[in-house]
């Protein structure tokens, strides 16, 4: 995933102004460090269960699929927003319960 992200961002790194390049570099770094990288399958499973639970049984309808995907936000929205400061994890800035960056290396 991070390799794909790097490949996508490479042209921007080359062409964009420095401020944008730095912003993207920071984003890329946080993206790779995020615990979401490891929690991603869990997030997908939570979403899939929520969507599936809202679907009618035995029939597939576009209206219902779209409605159920939208309705999955009742769980996934709050899950995505469950953020807090992460001093307990040893970082100085805001981190996340759902997808916090990894604990810094201690020497």
């Amino acid at each position, binding site marked *: 995933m991070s390799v794909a992200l790097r490949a996508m961002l490479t042209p921007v790194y080359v062409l964009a102004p420095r401020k944008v*390049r*730095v*912003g993207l*570099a*920071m*984003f*890329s*770094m*946080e*993206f790779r*460090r*995020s615990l*979401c*990288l490891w929690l*991603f399958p869990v*997030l*997908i499973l939570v*979403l*899939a269960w929520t*969507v599936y639970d809202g*679907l*009618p*049984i*035995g*029939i*597939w*309808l*576009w*209206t*219902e*699929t*779209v*409605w159920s*995907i*939208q*309705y*999955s*936000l*009742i*769980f*996934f*929205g*709050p*899950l*995505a*927003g*469950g*953020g*807090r*400061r992460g*001093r*307990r994890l040893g970082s100085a*800035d*805001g*981190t*996340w*319960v*759902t*997808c916090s*960056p990894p604990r810094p290396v201690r020497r």
Partner: protein
Amino acid sequence: MGDLLSTTSRPAVTRDFALWAATAAWCVLAYVVAAACFFLLTRANTDWGSPEWGSVAVGPVAIVAHSALGFAAGRHLPSRFTAPLFAIAMYWVQGLALFGLASWTGYLSPLGSEIASTVFYDESPDTVVLPQIIWFLGLAAVALSSVAVGRQRTTASWITLAVAAVVAVVPAVVLTRTPVEAVNARGTPVPYEPACEEGEILVCVHPAYEMALPGTMEVVDDLVAPLVDVPGAPSRAEQRPEDPRIRPDGTLVYSLYGAFHLLNANTGYGFRDYMEQDLAHALVAGPSGRIPWEAGAYGAGGSCRKPEGPRGEAQRVVAGWLIFRTGNYDSTHSMAFMEATNGELCPASEDAIERFDALEAAEWQAWLRKNYAALRAGELTLEDLP
């Protein structure tokens, strides 16, 4: 190492936003991947219709807003309890906006409205999607601006916060002034050619439900068979988004909503249970689709004790008998939707069903020919049954 060296000198708020953006990106990515999986499954299993892209687009934007609000809450209220409390609060806030408060708050929730879409009506052009997207982007902007103000109290950051607040408030006003109404009130009917099959009578379903046609026809045939050639009985059956009833033109309309949408492991009901109850109810009810109902039919002095039974009981008995004939009757749940007190019949009515079933075919056919119209009109009582 290059990334690290080039980014550590950036202002704290930039690092904040990078952290937030990365987390939000992962959540949006998860949502998009899950949605794509279900889209592929739906495309593989249905030929009818297409997704409503407007409603789909609201989801990722709402996730961005959720994560921005959560991030801001974590920055302003640094506590180990902030994250779980914020998640619980957001769950309740969007639930209350949708269900608990007046209908005018419904569209402020990312869940859209509590009214599910239907294949019979087209919601487009949907006037709600764009204001919802701007509303959530505005919320995200307010949250992130507040983080920026917390980090550096400059004029620019205050102006950004004010602009973001305006961007959030304007669509919110529009959304609260949009009445939450049923899709069949705000949408336009979608033209379609029903899928039909001839059994005892012609049975038609919406093409999106074509795979349900054989099962539906089987249930319709079983229930309608005793009524063939009875004056006033339906000549065709058609799925429509309406309460089950017999129209004046002789069409038995029914909805497959309960059969598919209320069907789950918790209720203990199957497709056939829902269909039988809906159809049997429609076959004995009047043109309005309602069976007269009387509160307090059970208990001491209740109308179950009266020989004629409560109002509408004769209709419920015949409906019960129609189900009884299929061999699927269960006194504890077969009458759940029949507007009977506690979803059950009077004890005398259970006996009446068995009496009716013991009749010779010629006898109940003769009785139905003579009394079906009066039965549907609610003019018969238990005493009028054979």
